[in-house]
């Protein structure tokens, strides 16, 4: 069983499909254990593997044959015009949506084939942040963060220790008893960040996290995301916030009309920025 350790909590059963295409060839399906081992040896560094993923809503094609790998510990910006498929891509990663074709593997879980009862296990590995925060207005900041831990069955003593810890991390110490509506937008987003990291997820997904925020707040959120990234989380941010993308110079994946049109190791919001940089302007 030790061999399978790398293949995630659901065992080798759901591991397999993505890995073969990662290295550009079809790996023959010998046994689950064997493939689990391959996954363990070859794919240990990969956290997200999308291979030939498409998503259709009726006649509309939101994603079209997308193949994308993200390594553990990466910080990736997902950019592109509205309706390009950024949100859809993020939603595929925590099974809010299911891919129409292709396979999605997140932390060795084959998301497309994940049985419904195992979906919560996937979501506990992933922290998600939204443009509209999605905080519960009837609960205090403390309760909002504690809620995640309660939901996943954490003991009370742990919750009492952990919540102040993460609130401290996002700079909301002292705001435990405030209700979301009493906070500024930036503070609310920081509370929602605290909620996203309370479970120590390996992957943080952020969908337009700065869309409703002013410049300073946006920067503070991005700095926090970078900080979590430094502490080991893989971060994937879908954003329109071009000044920040340009300034941070991280990996940038651009989507247009459901297709990946650019994937720069270190890039800016638009191709021109990357080009300028390459040309040394």
């Amino acid at each position, binding site marked *: 069983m030790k061999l399978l350790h790398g293949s995630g909590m659901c065992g080798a059963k759901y591991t397999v499909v993505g890995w073969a295409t990662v290295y550009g060839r079809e790996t023959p399906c010998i046994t689950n254990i064997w493939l689990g081992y391959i996954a363990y040896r070859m794919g240990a560094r990969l956290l997200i593997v999308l291979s030939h993923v498409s998503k259709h809503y009726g006649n509309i094609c939101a994603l079209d044959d997308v193949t994308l790998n993200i390594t553990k510990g990466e910080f990736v910006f997902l950019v592109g015009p509205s309706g390009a498929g950024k949100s859809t891509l993020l939603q595929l990663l925590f099974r809010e949506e299911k891919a129409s074709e292709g396979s999605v593997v997140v932390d060795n879980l084959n998301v497309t084939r994940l049985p419904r009862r195992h979906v919560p296990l996937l979501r506990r590995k992933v922290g998600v942040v939204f443009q509209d925060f999605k905080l519960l207005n009837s609960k205090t900041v403390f309760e909002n963060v504690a*809620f995640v831990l309660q939901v996943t069955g954490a003991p009370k003593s742990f919750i009492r220790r952990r919540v102040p810890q993460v609130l401290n991390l996002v700079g909301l110490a002292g705001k435990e008893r405030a209700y979301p509506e009493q906070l500024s937008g930036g503070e609310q987003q920081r509370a929602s960040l605290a909620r996203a990291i309370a479970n120590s997820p390996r992957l943080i997904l952020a969908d337009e996290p700065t869309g409703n925020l002013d410049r300073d707040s946006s920067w503070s959120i991005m700095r926090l995301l970078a900080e979590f990234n430094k502490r080991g989380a893989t971060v994937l941010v879908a954003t329109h916030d071009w000044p920040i993308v340009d300034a941070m110079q991280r990996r940038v994946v651009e989507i247009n009309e459901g297709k990946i049109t650019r994937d720069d190791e270190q890039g800016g919001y638009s191709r021109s920025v990357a080009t300028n940089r390459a040309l040394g302007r």
Partner: protein
Amino acid sequence: MTTSKGATVEVLRLIGRSVVEGFKSIWAHGLMSLASVGTVAVSLLVLAVFLVVAANLSYVADILEEQVEIVAYCSPEFDREWRETLIEKAEAIPGVGSVAFVGREEALDRLREQFGSQADLLSAVEDDNPLRDHLEITVEDPERIESVARSVGEIQSIDDVAYQREVVERLYSVTEALRTAGVGLVFLLAAATFLLISNTIRLTIFARRDEIEVMRLVGASSAFIWGPLVVEGLLLGMIGAGIAGIAIYWGYQDLVGSLHISLPFLPILGPQPLIGNLIQLLLIIGAMLGIMSSWFSAQRYVKI
């Protein structure tokens, strides 16, 4: 050992939380909850009334059935000296309970008694008693009355055999019809109750959509999300059933009390154990309806 203990604690916590949240939500949707509880109560009360009436009818039928007896008329030339032999012969027939010989004089006396103040009417027949000596035979098993009667008829010096089973049979068929009608009506009412409860639960889901969304996002298990909804449905169903139970309890006790005074000879079942069993049944039905309808709503409106 520790894991099973941990799992138990978790399940208990889940149940506790579900109950608390379920109660909260019933309180929060006062009017809608009231409507659901009311429908459950009315539906189950109708069921209860049908069942009580049916139980009493079949009780009456049972009593009458026990009273059904065979009357075997002796031939006019029957000699009373053979009385004992005749009784022994009748008693020897399998399935016979008791045998009593009634002389024609006694039969006339009884008739006179039944007529009471109008006994004068009988004066016309008094000089020449038209009645006959006969045997009154009870049977052990009312179902076999026909074959027993046939055997009795074969005894020498028995002229004619009569028994009245039709009354009992009619009563049974009425009871049966009443039960069928009751079940049919109850199914209709159950459907209405089902819709109302599931709608209430839908309202809860709508009111809590943000919370449910967050729960889904952070990886709450479906049991965690559905638990409070199912508990709410269960409570709505059981509260309704409880109200119906209390109503039938008081109502029936009153009815029995006043009937005992005004119509003391009418056979009617005592409140216990009839009503106790009925309340249990109502609670079970209410609980099942509640769970089923809330489960239906949860399945339908909360996607995981």
